[in-house]
């Protein structure tokens, strides 16, 4: 279920770093499908999902690890991409968070093998 952008082989070698953006999204399990569709539509080539995470937010504390409920748990996505892709994802999530609980964080990041993250370079 994960298609992780990860890379470890190049450690120790001389390599160039490329600047990209990273987005982290935390939503309720019932919105998992929506975020997946959104990421695909915005051209994310891959993403990571963490299910059943716990935390405290404005709505109170939320405990993960629910055996018999895949909807109420929290799900975290993170993925890396260029500015355009991240903007697209943010555009879709902004209205969502007006109504449903959830958060997103965008930050600068650097990756080694650019072609793993950008479709155009394949």
């Amino acid at each position, binding site marked *: 279920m994960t298609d992780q952008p990860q890379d470890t082989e190049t450690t120790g070698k001389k390599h160039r770093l490329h600047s990209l953006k990273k987005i982290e999204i935390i939503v309720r399990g019932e919105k998992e499908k929506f975020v997946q569709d959104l990421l695909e539509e915005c051209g994310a080539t891959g993403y990571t999902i963490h299910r059943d995470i716990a935390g405290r937010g404005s709505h*109170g*504390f939320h405990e993960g690890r*629910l055996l018999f*409920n895949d909807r*109420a748990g929290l799900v975290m996505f993170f993925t890396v991409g260029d500015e355009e892709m991240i903007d697209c994802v943010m555009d*879709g999530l902004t*209205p969502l968070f007006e*109504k449903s609980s959830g958060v997103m964080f965008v930050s600068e990041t650097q990756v080694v093998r650019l072609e793993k993250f950008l479709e155009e370079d394949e």
Partner: protein
Amino acid sequence: MSIEISVLRGRIENAAEAVGPLWPLRTFNSANPLSGFESLPFHEAVQRAGHLFRGRGYPAPDVFRRAWERGDIDPEILQRQLRDAGHDLDPAAALDALPRHDSSPAEAEDERLNRIMSKWLAAFFDHGQAAWPMPNRSDGFFASWRILAPFDRGIPGIRQTSDLPSTKLDAFIETLDGVPEEEWETIFTHHLAALPGWVGLIRWQGRGTAGEWEKAKPITLGGYLAVRLTVARLLGEPLLPKDAPANGEANPDTQTLPAVVLAAWEETYRHRLIDDLTEPPSRPSVDGTDTRPDAQLVFCIDVRSEILRRHLEGLGPYETHGYAGFFGIPMEHESYAPGAGVGERVKACPPIVDPRHRIAERVAPGCEHEAEAYNDWAGIEGTRRTLLKTLKKDVAAAFGFVEGSGGFYGIAMALRTLLPHRVFDGLKSLREHLPGPSSFTEVTVDRPDTPDPDDALPLGLSPEVKIVYAEAAFRLMGWTDEFAPIVVFTGHGSQTPNNPFKSSLDCGACAGNPGGPNARVLAAICNEPAVRDALRSRGIHIPEDTVFLAGQHNTTTDEVTLFVDDEDPPVDPGALERLRDDLAAARNGATAERVSSMDDRMWADATRETERRAADWSETRPEWGLAGNAAFIVGPRRLTRNLDLRGRSFLHSYDWRVDDSGTALETILTGPLVVGEWINMQYYFSTVDNAVYGSGSKVTHNVSGKVGVVQGNGGDLMTGLPLQSLYMDDEVPFHDPLRLFAVLHAPVERVEMILNRQDTLKRLFDHGWVALAIMDPEENDRVMRYQPGGSWAPMSVDEQPAAAVLPDA
């Protein structure tokens, strides 16, 4: 104008919250029709939904009146509730003053739009009824409609396909031209809520569980809206009719008269239940731990189990437990397919759980002979069905076919109508001569040696996960010490012919399927020595001589079938014989009780009457399903044993003493209780407004596309339960529309801890969707009532100080 597609997606997602998903009839799942409003207080939610769908949110005045006349509303409680709510009325006056529902007969402005949409949606959402389905469906709803629209005379201004926007996005760009983004959601909500049946089905498909049909006919809410807004534009209709209900405001008065009377009715029931639960003589003096029971049976928490459990326990040294009917196995079930065929795959776990494993039925070693006999029969039966189907539909062959087959249909019609008992006997003897797949198959609990990499769901269970599921079962039920020689996991299913709503009578925890397969999986797991060893190291000691069996409770006839090979029984044949005899005796007791609730005639042989109902093709009330449900009791069986709960309570076994961390209780509350709330709310709303939230009378139902029912000639799909599942007749409900009352046998601190870390759950209680009380075992089972906001108050009327006893933690 340009539109960001992702913004559009977000707005549609928000707007879609108003309409709950609708499952196809084959796997009817209970759902709160107002699930999208659950983040609001109950009273506000019914008002808003009432505006949007023009539905009633509270029982009708005559329903209240009948409850009052039956004595189901305590005058004192009603008086107190009225006073507290600031209504200066005595109970009788309050009942007279209940407002009648003002239905708005005015024709909506977009009827034409609704008709065009429902015509194409019905054609698109056809899962195999029409021989010639809508062309190009696999291109999606918008694209396939776009090809057909120029030939559809109902829409002006389209002569050819190029007159229409070429993509969904273009359709939105054209129609939303100049409309500010803030208004989109209101517009979308209006158009989605206009046809809640079809839109609910689109939302179901959006959950990604449509299987092969997903690819055959992809559809999204975006596609629906693109077509609908385009048609609206071409018809010259406004995007938002002037009379469209404003989604914004709601009457701030939460203490309306119907709300108060409803609360009084609920309180009456709840107080009586608590009185029963706390009445000392009803409890057995000992915990029953001194003698080992002959057998222990685990039933689904379903309210129907309670009746049979009670009758069985009265007959001998039996213990029963309650556990979610999918037995904790999040699986997809693949039924046995004769020959080289592929079995039907259905999800067999609750709507809030995703399946993680596929469990198939395969011929058990040594049973090849029986399988072959069955295959031969199934081959001929399949051919017969195919022949009938294809001959009926063929343009030229149908005429000769009718002449050849008409006589046989006449005979069959007479038999089925006049001799339903014989039909039941016939089916039974067929099963005896030719046992079904459950007699010669085993369930694939083990991982195959070479896993199929193409399959999204892995076949079988890994050794580790088996232990997890077995342990979860016993931990949740709080069952760690005593095991009888025979332990039966009993799933349940219904038996009813000619009934589009059959799956609504099956196990709700198995997504509207019979629970037998799940029971077989858990029994198979628990019989594995490796699993037992692992359980032993975790404090669950299952003796060597304990054997786990699987069975299925037929809720229509109350017959329990045990999946046992009688030629080589794994347990003492004498004990098995005794168990079967007692199950048969319990069955007679249970059917007598159930039949009397369906028909006030005296039945000499109630069991026979249930058999008729199970086979009679003209029967619209084969059984009451979960009608009557009003309480959810979590605790050990000794709390409720010997009590007649009249089939109205979900019973989940739980022992607070072996759940120090509260994990088991947390799992019960976030899983089974939430499903119980969905079921309860479906029964509630289907009863209070059977037209808007239910599916109306069965006598005018018309099954559309094998997925849903429409009333009469068509239009929007009906959602929810049919009248006959809830009402004695056209006017008097059998189901009392009461919100669920959860009673937990657990210490207050533990419950508070769970509520504080599960805010979604807490909100259900805070907002009045479910009421909560605890019997605190650390306080001598004192009953405390949860108050919205987080405080607790004593339940009993005698000690009713207005102030909360415990402050918010």
